């Protein structure tokens, strides 16, 4: 078993366990902390797949910015285990069964896929670096890049509009 395979299984176990703990832990703050571990293990997977830029962006944007935002909102709302709403038992069993059967169907449909991710060439990893990605981003994908800036502007305006106190009752 090579070092890449050991790392792969370790990161996979960490990601799946963290995702399960996000769903099943009672305290929302614990859910956020487990989700951060999921994002770090996914960043490790990106490094194993030679996508270094995406790994760093995943760490900074997801594990850094977005999770801090989640944690901030949760602490602002002062939620804890006692006030945590629960669904009924049968509804939870039905939801788990439907999710499990979706996984079963997808695994059964895709289990015979052929193709390899790592082969005999170990040092083939320079498409994930900033040089190559930036060249393609600013030549072929420059229009979607500019449109995404408009998307960010509209998201910012929308968040400010939703977040401010309504003095003249727009919403309610």
């Amino acid at each position, binding site marked *: 078993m090579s070092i890449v*395979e050991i790392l*792969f299984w370790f990161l996979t176990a960490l990601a*799946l366990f963290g*995702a*399960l703990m*996000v*769903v099943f832990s009672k305290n*929302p703050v614990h*859910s956020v902390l487990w989700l951060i571990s*999921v994002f770090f293990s*996914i960043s490790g*997977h*990106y490094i194993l797949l030679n*996508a270094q830029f*995406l790994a760093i*962006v995943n760490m900074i*944007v*997801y594990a850094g910015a*977005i999770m801090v*935002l989640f944690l901030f*909102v949760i602490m602002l*709302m002062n*939620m804890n285990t006692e006030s945590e*709403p*629960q*669904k009924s038992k049968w509804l939870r069993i039905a*939801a*788990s069964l*439907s*999710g*499990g059967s*979706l996984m079963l169907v*997808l*695994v059964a449909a*895709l*289990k015979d*896929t*052929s*193709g390899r*991710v*790592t*082969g005999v*060439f170990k040092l*083939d990893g320079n*498409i*994930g670096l900033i040089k190559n*990605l930036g060249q*393609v*981003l600013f030549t072929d*994908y420059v229009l*979607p890049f500019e449109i*995404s800036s408009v*998307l960010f502007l509209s*998201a910012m305006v*929308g*968040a400010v509009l*939703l*977040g401010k106190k309504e003095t003249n009752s727009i*919403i*309610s």
Partner: protein
Amino acid sequence: MPINYYILLSVALFSIGIVGVLTRRNAIIIFMCIEIMLNAVNVLLVAFSKMHHLRAFVADRATTVGTDAQLFVFFIMVVAAAEVTVGLAIIVMLYRNIHSVDINFLNRLKH
């Protein structure tokens, strides 16, 4: 490393996200489960990018096949960041109006 392992990892993460959306009633936990599902798709895109790059790399050492998928993942992250800001603003507004983040209070759309 066969591509199957990455497909299985991605399917498992996606299913855990779906189970979380269906079982929990806290709106913020549901939002986090949606983030897990987005990340499962991102892992799969990067794995397929690597697979195609490896196949093209055997023929040509200077190939850039597989860059598009990684940029697609980049754009998914951009859209997810915008989505999180608006979604959390909606949840905060919700909490201010009904003093709870329980989605069972939201099945009426107007009250």
